[in-house]
């Protein structure tokens, strides 16, 4: 048992995502409570009191972000739900959107009420077909039930939600790129300041929150911030959706209460490592977070401070587990190929650096590595750090240098001998191995 649950506290059925099922579980009562008995500032105060940290990866306090919006500035304010889940290893928001779309919508309405927004946006990644359809249908259900549109629940508050589907771009998960995309442009991040809470969508104050962050809001308003805070740890209150994948017996989406044992989670809840192999390393929160090896996980708990103390982050909760015997040079190459593909091309260090790193790793994997390649990879990683508008380039650098720090011997062996220290394999149990398919 991995602690108390906020999201996975009901049996999933063919209709558990519907408005009727959600209402039967107590859905939209928090909205009723907020609109009838709370001022917008009270909602923000409650969220601040809960200590809720953003679940998109940066773990910024949600209440503080909302509190920046000046309610009396006379400007329109917007909330945008970031449902552009694209971080490799992360698929927890997809679960929320598919199974509890109304919870996400209720959270979005509450957030919009807190900042006195008249329009809200959901930016969903273009590839998400089922989550898109579930969300679209849920929004229409909410409109029909008087939970959206003019004069919600007869309280005088009005809100329209635009469901906006992206068209395939990882960088649009970055908040400023997302807003550019919402304006109908290519998703280029922009320099800040001015912050998005000052000049965001259409140059108006805008709050961008992750799906899971907003899905927490109904519980906070329903129970009160102080009660919410009693779940989890004082510095990481609440629960975390973890999507776990890789060489694991039972991959999937789990909800854990912060402070739960990391090893227990991997070995007991997720059934341990495939093929009875030993654990080699874990990428804790999507490929942008630094890897931790088996030793670094010993005695550690799943929460922000524990991950930070180990030099990494919980990030977006997308955990990738890698078994002993996996070639880390090839792992680095797959990660770098991704960053090269997804660089938006706006900043030179990222546009050129990502391709350069991929070419070097490609060469090493082909058996044509050069002795100076390791230093060059470090050099490009460092050159990217802090020199680009968004953190895509930095993340790629961190990911690569962390693998080099941990497994430099594998790179040296590959360069010296022209082949992997292991058999070059990435898989433990490959369903296609028997048919001899190779690329």
């Amino acid at each position, binding site marked *: 048992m991995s602690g108390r649950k906020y999201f996975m506290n009901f049996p999933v059925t063919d209709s558990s995502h519907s408005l009727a099922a959600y209402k039967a579980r107590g859905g939209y009562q928090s909205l009723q409570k907020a609109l009838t008995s709370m001022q917008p500032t009270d909602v923000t105060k409650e969220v601040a009191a809960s200590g809720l940290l953003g679940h998109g990866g940066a773990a910024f306090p949600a209440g503080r972000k909302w509190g920046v919006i000046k309610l009396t500035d006379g400007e329109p304010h917007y909330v945008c739900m970031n449902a552009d889940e694209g971080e490799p290893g992360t698929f927890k928001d997809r679960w929320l959107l598919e199974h509890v779309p109304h919870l996400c919508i209720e959270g979005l309405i509450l957030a919009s009420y807190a900042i006195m927004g008249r329009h809200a946006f959901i930016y969903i990644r273009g590839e998400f077909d089922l989550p898109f359809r579930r969300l679209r249908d849920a929004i229409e259900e909410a409109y029909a039930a008087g939970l959206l549109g003019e004069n919600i629940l007869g309280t005088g508050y009005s809100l329209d939600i635009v469901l906006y589907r992206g068209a395939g771009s990882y960088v649009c998960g970055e908040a400023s790129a997302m807003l550019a995309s919402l304006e109908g442009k290519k998703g280029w991040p922009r320099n800040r300041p001015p912050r998005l809470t000052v000049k965001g969508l259409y140059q108006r104050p805008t709050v961008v929150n992750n799906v899971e962050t907003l899905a927490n809001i109904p519980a906070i308003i329903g129970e009160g911030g102080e009660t919410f805070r009693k779940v989890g740890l004082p510095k990481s209150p609440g629960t975390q959706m973890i999507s776990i994948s890789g060489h694991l017996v039972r991959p999937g989406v789990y909800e854990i209460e912060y402070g739960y044992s990391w090893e227990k989670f991997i070995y007991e809840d997720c059934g341990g490592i495939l093929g009875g192999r030993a654990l080699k390393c874990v990428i804790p929160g999507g490929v942008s977070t630094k890897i931790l090896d088996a030793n670094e996980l010993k005695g550690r708990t799943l929460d922000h401070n524990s991950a930070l103390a180990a030099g990494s982050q919980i990030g977006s909760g997308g955990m990738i587990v890698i078994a002993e015997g996996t070639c880390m040079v090839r792992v680095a190459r797959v990660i770098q190929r991704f960053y090269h593909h997804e660089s938006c091309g706006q900043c030179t260090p990222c546009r050129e650096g990502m391709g350069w790193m991929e070419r070097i790793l490609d060469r090493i994997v082909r058996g044509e590595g050069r002795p100076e390649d390791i230093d060059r990879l470090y050099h490009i990683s460092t050159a990217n750090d802090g020199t680009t508008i968004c953190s895509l380039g930095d993340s790629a650098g961190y990911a690569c240098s962390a693998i080099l720090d941990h497994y430099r011997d594998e790179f040296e062996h590959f360069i010296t001998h022209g082949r992997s220290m292991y058999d070059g394999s990435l898989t433990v149990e490959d369903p296609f191995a028997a048919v001899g398919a190779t*690329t």
Partner: protein
Amino acid sequence: MTAPTSHETPMPKPPMQNIQHLIPEFERWKQRYPSDFTGSLTIPCLRRIQEERGYIADSDIDELVAYLGVPRMQVDEVIAFYTQFTRVPLGNHHLQVCHNLSCSLRGAEGLVGYLCAKLGIQPGETTADGKFTLSTVECLASCGTAPMMMVNDTYHENLTPASVDALLEDLSK
């Protein structure tokens, strides 16, 4: 007042043919936007046009530019930037195999190899009969059910040689 010279005459708008029947739908979408932020409709409109035709033709772009009143360059940039837009026709079934890390750890490379062998094409190519286009893509947020691929809009997960065979047979009908 003198008559305008020929170079001052505004360019006539092309008659709407390709997207005319979609305009009422686009107009409905506008209702939920804050005010006249029509530029925001660029991506949704392009998605809808591609859904109908299978790709975006030059004439579609001309009509969309005229309808939305946005610069043509903006529409061209958007189509080039986002991976889901295409200006060339694809096969009837677009097989997009995720080959990011989690899928690679569970056999994505073998899956790509298997599909190449079965279809006789490489990633990025379309079969001669126009039925299948094969692509490799980065993370589709289906890491726990790897290896997987998206066929048109639908996810197929936990793939094995047997399930791929059954799927291809089904799609070939």
